[in-house]
């Protein structure tokens, strides 16, 4: 008898182990993408002409199917986790860069002038004024990037054994056990929803000045509304 949580031994992981692996392969790229997007977005904000070509480049990168990206990278990085993580990090840029640029641009000029008048240098002004005010937009971008990253890791199953929970899908076909595929899809969906909820919680914690539990309609720019715009303008 094989049950819902009986993972075939050739995957070399328990169910919980696969979840850990999946989260690592999905979240490290988003973090790396954020680290890369922050300076790039800052440059795009400073030099306006840079923004359209950067957007175009990230869109083209995003258009390359993940599977093709993985296979091409195998030549350079082998069948490792890194091969799965590099494309995911690059994909996240297409959402994160516009989210950060729009968020930082939405800081009113008067606020910046006030910060300057209080003697803030450029670095302090960026970290203590611009980034906190841009936080809702940045987190909105992170939500889209995290959800798609968690979903895309599973494609890594096709290049060998690098799909974490996606490997369950391959196993489901190999051993004709559909319940493993159900398990994989549900687990990934739950992981995505949990990460999404955590990011919303983070936004609430980071922006104590915003009214809690307000309807999206009443503050379209800061809440989910901005997230929709970030998504709409990402591509």
């Amino acid at each position, binding site marked *: 008898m094989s049950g819902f949580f009986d993972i075939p031994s050739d995957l070399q992981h328990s169910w919980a182990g696969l979840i850990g692996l999946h989260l690592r392969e999905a979240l490290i790229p988003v973090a790396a993408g954020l680290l890369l997007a922050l300076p790039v977005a800052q440059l795009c904000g400073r030099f306006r002409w840079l923004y359209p070509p950067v957007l175009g480049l990230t869109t083209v990168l995003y258009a390359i199917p993940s*599977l093709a990206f993985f*296979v091409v990278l195998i030549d350079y990085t082998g069948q490792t986790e890194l091969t799965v993580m590099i494309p995911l990090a690059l994909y996240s840029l297409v959402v994160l860069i516009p989210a950060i640029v729009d968020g930082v641009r939405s800081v009113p000029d008067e606020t910046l002038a006030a910060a300057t008048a209080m003697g803030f240098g450029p670095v302090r002004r960026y970290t203590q004024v611009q980034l906190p005010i841009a936080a809702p937009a940045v987190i909105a971008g992170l939500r889209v990037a995290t959800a798609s990253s968690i979903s895309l890791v599973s494609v890594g199953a096709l290049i060998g054994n690098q799909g974490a929970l996606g490997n369950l899908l391959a196993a489901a076909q190999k051993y004709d056990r559909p319940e493993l595929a159900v398990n994989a899809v549900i687990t990934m*969906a*739950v992981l995505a929803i949990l990460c999404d909820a955590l990011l919303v919680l983070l936004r609430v914690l980071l922006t104590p000045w915003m009214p809690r539990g307000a309807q999206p309609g009443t503050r379209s720019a*800061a809440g989910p509304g901005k997230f929709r715009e970030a998504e*709409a303008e990402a*591509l």
Partner: protein
Amino acid sequence: MNIFDFAHAFFGDSANWQGYDGIPQRFLEHLQYSLLALAVAAAIGLPVGLLTGHTGRGGNALAFIANAARALPSFGLLVLVVLLIGFGLLPVMIPLVVLAVPPILVTTYEAVRTVDPSPVDAARGMGMRESRILFQVEVPVALPLILSGLRSAAIQIVSTATIAAYVSLGGIGRYIIDGLYQRDYEKVVGGATLVAFLALVTLVLFWAAGRFVVSPGVRRREGRAKDSRARTAE
């Protein structure tokens, strides 16, 4: 050999341009899956988005549905549906439509909802019926954003339709999957280039469509509106 050599070898080989596994055939198949999925997704997303955006109700439910759909992994869904109902076109369409509905739905809703209320009130004051208000006032103004939602969905579909090959259908994904199993990098790189090219064509087409169908007045205002919207946002 680098990527460009692979691509050059792939596109230079005349055998790749003919027959049932030729580039024109696979390209058409890919186009067919993509258009079908986009049409179905638009048929679901546009009416619901327009209606909820017009009435301004159901936004939270919409956001929840879109988030839940986004959380479903396309590849996982494909494998699951194939295991449950077998091979065919339907198992490919389900994940593609699930992938494409959230951006269309959410952007359309947001586009119609954020239309400047004063012209809408003016239209209502003039005695226009709700359907005319929606189609003659709100939709023309919201069109750029609605198109951007469709574009985002189309690009995701084009790039994800490669998974059709995984369940024995055609499309450009055939080159990527077959190349992977045959350790034939020429094929993989060629397939990837074709998909990226198709995605770029999609971008250009939507840009051209925007030029064509968006009214000049709305288009000119777009650039300024975007800036001022960002300024007054907080």
